[in-house]
C-alpha cells in the first residue's frame, strides 16, 4: 500500500518535471534575454545561448537534465554558474526552520482553541475566537505582516523589521529575528486548523457513542478530550498537513516582506530569469514536499482509526 503510493509519487514527480520544463519553455524569452535585458544584442544573445547549450532542441535539453538529475546531479545555475545543491541547501534549511517555528506555535494553539470552541460551543467565547481567527485569515498575509511591523517594530521597537538571518547567528538570535514572520504565518494558518478541529469535534459529538458517554455521566471536558477528539483526528490531520505544506512552499510573500532568505524567493527569481535547472530543482522540491506530506497524512489517518488499521 505505502510502497504503491511511493511509486505513484515518483511518477507524479517525473510528470511534474515535464510540466515545469514545458511551462518555462512557454514563457516569453530565455535566460540569455532575461540576463542581458535591455542591453541585449543579437550577437551577445547568440554567444550566450551557445555557451549554455540553449541552442539545442528542447527534448534533448530535457533528457540531458533528467539524466543528470537521476544520477543525483542537480547541475549548476545557468545565470551565475553556482551549484544548485549549494543554492538550495541552506535556503531549504531556512525555509524548514521558519515553517517549523510557525508550526510549533500554530498547531497546539489551533488544537486547543478548536477544542475550547467546541466545548463552549455558541458561547461568546466561541464567537470571539471564530471572529478573530477568520478575520486574520481573511487579510492578505503581506498586510498582516506590515501591520505587525508598523506596531511591533517601527512604533514600539521590540522586534527587528527585517529577518535577514545568517548562518553565523546563534540559535536564539535567529529565533528573535523570525518572531514577526512566525507570528504572521501563525495568524494566517491558525484559523484553518482551529475551524476544522471545532467542526469535526462537533460532528463527532452527535454520534450515538457520545450520547452513551453522556448517559454514563462523564463530564463534558472528559468526553471531548478522551472520546470525541481521537475520533475526530483524521480530518484534522489532513488540514494540519496541508497547512504544513503551505508553510514550506507558499510563504514567498512573507519572505519578501520580511526579507527572509528562503526557498520561495529563489523560485521566483529563477522563474523570472528563466534559470531552468534552478526552477526544476526547487519546483520538484516543492512538489516532493506535497507528495510526502500527503503520504504521511494518509498513514497517520490510518493509524488513528482502528477501523482502517485492521482492514478485516
Amino acid at each position, binding site marked *: 500500500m505505502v510502497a504503491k503510493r511511493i511509486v505513484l509519487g515518483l511518477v507524479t514527480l517525473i510528470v511534474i518535471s515535464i510540466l515545469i520544463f514545458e511551462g518555462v519553455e512557454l514563457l516569453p*524569452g530565455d535566460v540569455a534575454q532575461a*540576463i542581458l535585458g535591455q542591453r541585449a544584442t543579437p*550577437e551577445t544573445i547568440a554567444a550566450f545561448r551557445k555557451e549554455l547549450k540553449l541552442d539545442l532542441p528542447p527534448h534533448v535539453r530535457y533528457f540531458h537534465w533528467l539524466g543528470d538529475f537521476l544520477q543525483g546531479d542537480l547541475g549548476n545555475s545557468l545565470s551565475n554558474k553556482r551549484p544548485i545543491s549549494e543554492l538550495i541547501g541552506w535556503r531549504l534549511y531556512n525555509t524548514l526552520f521558519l515553517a517549523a517555528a510557525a508550526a510549533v506555535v500554530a498547531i497546539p494553539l489551533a488544537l486547543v482553541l478548536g477544542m475550547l470552541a467546541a466545548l463552549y460551543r455558541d458561547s461568546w467565547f466561541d464567537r470571539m475566537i471564530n471572529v478573530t481567527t477568520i478575520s486574520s485569515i481573511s487579510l492578505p498575509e503581506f498586510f498582516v505582516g506590515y501591520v505587525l511591523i508598523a506596531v511591533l517594530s*517601527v512604533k514600539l521597537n521590540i522586534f527587528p523589521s527585517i529577518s*535577514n538571518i545568517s548562518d553565523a547567528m546563534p540559535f536564539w538570535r535567529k529565533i528573535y529575528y523570525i518572531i514577526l514572520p512566525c507570528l504572521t504565518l501563525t495568524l494566517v494558518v491558525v484559523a484553518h486548523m482551529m475551524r476544522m478541529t471545532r467542526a469535526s469535534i462537533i460532528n463527532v459529538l452527535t454520534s450515538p457513542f457520545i450520547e452513551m458517554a453522556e448517559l454514563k455521566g462523564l463530564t463534558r471536558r472528559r468526553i471531548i478530550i478522551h472520546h470525541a477528539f481521537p475520533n475526530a483526528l483524521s480530518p484534522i490531520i489532513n488540514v494540519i498537513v496541508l497547512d504544513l505544506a503551505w508553510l514550506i512552499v507558499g510563504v514567498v510573500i512573507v519572505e519578501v516582506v520580511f526579507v527572509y532568505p528562503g526557498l520561495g524567493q529563489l523560485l521566483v527569481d529563477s522563474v*523570472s530569469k528563466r534559470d531552468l535547472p534552478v526552477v526544476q530543482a526547487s519546483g520538484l522540491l516543492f512538489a516532493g514536499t506535497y507528495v510526502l506530506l500527503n503520504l504521511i497524512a494518509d498513514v497517520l489517518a490510518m493509524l488513528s482509526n482502528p477501523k482502517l488499521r485492521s482492514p478485516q
Partner: protein
Amino acid sequence: MAKIDEYIQKFESGRISRRGFIKSLMVLGLSVPAINMILASSGPVAHAAKPKKGGRFRLGVGQGAMTDSLDPGALPSTAPQIVHLQVRNCLTELNYKYNPIPELAESWEPSADASKWTFKLRKGVEFHNGKTLDAEDVVFSINYHRGEDSKSSGKSLVTAVKDVKADGKHTVVFILEGGNADFPFIMSDYHLGIFPAGTTDFEKGIGTGAFKLVSWEPGVRALTKLNPNYWKQGRGHFDEVETIYINDVSARINALKTGQIDAMNRCERKTFHLLEKIPGIKAINLTGTTHYTIPMLSDVPPYDNNDVRLALKLTVDREQLVKQILRGYGAVGNDHPIAPSQRFYASELPQRKYDPDKARYHMKKAGKLNHTFKLHVSDAAFAGAVDTAVLIKESATKAGIKIDVVREPQDGYWSDVWMKKAWTFSFWGGRPSEDWMFAIGYAEESNWNEGHFKHKRFNELLKAARAELDNAKRREMYVEMQRLVRDEGGSIIPMFANLLMATSTKVGFENVAANFDLDGLRTPERWWFI
C-alpha cells in the same frame, strides 16, 4: 575655456582662495554675472566634517536577484554592480560633475585626432591576491568584453576599440576606429572594471578595490572588509560594508527607520515627502541623467511622417506628468536625452509644451486625424509607465487625436515589445557624455536606436563632434544634434526622473554624484560615519 576649467579645479581642490579665483576669472575677461554663475556651481569641497574611519556600513539595495553574479560582463542590476565596484576599480572615475578623474589610470593623452589614447597606469597598485597591477591586466580585462564570442552586456562599449595593447608595464594604448574625444568617459563604465589577467572565476571578486570580498550570496547579501592597502587618497572609510538585498520598498524603509540598515536606494515617490520629515533620516533627491522615453519607430508608417511624430510630441502634457507620475521629483524633458546638468546641454532650445491646437494642426497636415495610435506599455519600462500612457491618451483626446493604450506583460517586455512594436515605452539611465548617449540611443547603426532615427546630418555631426577636441566647436555641434533629435527624432522624452535615496543622519557624504544610483555606485568607498 580650458583655462577656466583649470582654475575651477584649483579652486575646488583648495589650491587657490575664493578671492584669488574671482581675480583670475576677471583677468580672463569674464563678466561678474558669469563669474557668479560659476561660483554657484562650483566651490571648494567642504571639509567641515572630516571623514571618520570605522564602522560597519549596512546598505539596503533594492533591485537584485539570486541569479546575480560578479561577472563584469553580466551585472544586471544595482546590487551586483555596487558589490563589483567595492572590490574592483576602473581606469577612470566620474566625479559628481560628470567629469572623468583618475582612478587606476594616473593620466591619459589623446592623439591629435583622438583616435589613439594612451593611459598611464598608477604604479604599485596591488590586487587583493597580492599581484601587482600592470598593463597586461588592463588589456585582459578590456578584451574580455571584445571579440566574436563575447556575451558581455558591455560589449557595445568597446566595439569602437580596434586594438588595445600594453606598452611596457604601466602604459596601455587604445587604437579606436575613429576619433573619440570622450573616450575617458567610457573607461569609467562599471562593466570595464579591471581584474587580474587570466581570471576565470569572477565570484571570488579579486580586484584592486577599497574592499575585499568576505562573503557573497547573490539575492541575499555581500560582506566586504576594508582593503588595508587601498591606494586611493581619501577613500574607503568603513571597516566593513554589508550590502543587503531588500527588494520590497516598504521593507527597505522600515529597515532604515528601525536602524537595521544605514542607507537605501530607490525610495518610493509617493512617500518620499514623509521620509523627509522623519528625524534621524536624511533624504537625498537628485536630478541626474535618468530619463523615460516613448520611442516611435520612425521608419514604420504612420510614424515615418514627421508631422505625426511632432503632433504626438505636442500632445504630451509634460508638466502634468512630472507632477502626477514623478510627484514633482523630476524635471520636464525636451524630447532629447541630454540632461540640464550636462556639459553641452542646449539651454537655448525652447521647452516643448503641451499644445493641443498645434498638435491637431500637424496631425491634420499628416491626414491622420482618424487614425487610432496603439501605444504599447508595461510597467517593466519604469514604475508608472502605464499611468503615463493613460494620461497621454487623455491629453491627446483633447487635441482630437485617438490613442489606444495596449497593456503588455512585464515578462519579456524588452525582448518582445520594445523596439518590436511601433510605439512603446522605454527607460534610460542616461550617459555622462553627450556623445555616448547619442551614439548608443540615436546613431543609425546602434542596436539601441530605439526610434529607428536615421538622419544623415545627425550622424555626420555625431562623428565630427566625437573627434573634435575644441569644446566651443563641440558645443555648437551638440546643440544642433539636440535640436535635430528634438524636432525630427523618433522619441518623445517627457521627463527626467530624480534619484531618491535615504540615509541615517549618522552617515556622512558630500556632493553626491547623480550619474548612477548611490553616488555613482561609489557609496561604499565615498561615504563615512560621522
